[in-house]
């Protein structure tokens, strides 16, 4: 990744985004994105863990979870193509819990030094 603009351009390869541009993503770029994601999850691990913990006890008043969901929905509404069925599913509060929990758990399992290999494996198997 030579600079931040390259990462910004690569984000637009996501077909769910409003500003979707179909570029042929290279294998090296794909691996670099996975490494960045694994490093970010290492940095955010305490927050991810707290989010996961907040859903484990039903009696727990999960302010942190509600705050996260609110920010998540705002971000999706702002950046993603809300007419797409897959994006609609992400915004549906009854259905998106499983998607969010599984995504957070995947990230939390990939914080070791070789975590990016595990993340790559999970992505291929999904």
């Amino acid at each position, binding site marked *: 990744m030579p600079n931040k603009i390259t990462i910004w351009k690569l984000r637009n390869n996501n077909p769910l985004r409003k500003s979707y541009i179909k570029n042929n993503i*290279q294998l090296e770029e794909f691996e670099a994105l996975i490494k960045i994601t694994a490093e970010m999850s290492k940095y955010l691990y305490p927050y991810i863990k707290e989010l*996961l913990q907040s859903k*484990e006890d039903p009696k727990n008043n999960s302010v942190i979870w509600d705050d996260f969901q609110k920010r998540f929905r705002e971000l999706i509404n702002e950046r993603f193509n809300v007419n797409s069925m897959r994006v609609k599913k992400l915004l549906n509060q009854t259905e998106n819990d499983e998607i969010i929990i599984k995504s957070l758990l995947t990230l939390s*399992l990939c*914080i070791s*030094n*070789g975590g990016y290999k595990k993340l790559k494996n999970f992505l291929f198997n999904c």
Partner: protein
Amino acid sequence: MLQNSLSFHQSSVSLEIIGLPDYSNNENKGQISIISDWKLNIIGKPLIEGKIDHLGQIMDAFYIYSSLIITNEKPLYESKLIDIKADNLYIHNIVLKSSKPEVRPLIIKIGNSLLSDIINCFDQLNESSKVRIKKSRFFNSMPKKVIFPLNNKVKFFNFFLPPFISICSLVLFSSTLIYFFNPIENKEKKELINKK
């Protein structure tokens, strides 16, 4: 002889490995190659301990189960030593079975946060240079058929896409020329030439 002890910590979980270096292999004093005991300490839960054979099986169970959670809706892992089953999306039920018939199985309930802490402790052990352990088959496992699809796909497209597009554009371009071709007019022209 004094045994070495190494601990791996991740938030609420710690894994302690006790053993000796293999002096016949000229290893350092701090190294552990012959593991005699291990202890998995989860805060607020009973202590789990055992021999080296059990550690390998338990690590495999956790690695397989963690990948099943991501891919399956109802993950379940069963073996002679350990069963792991999901109660719901957030809670997992672990049943540790003893080899002795009179000992009752130990049941532990853990959440997603503790599960990730346990897996991260095992990852630290696998990545540690101070402990020589037979790496779990499922640690960072990437089956051969999974490694190459993206690479192959990219090569396949790079190879076949340009000629395919050029053939398509040729067909499209030539099909537009049909509108300029009038067979009756052409026939008349030929007849005129013959008369001459």
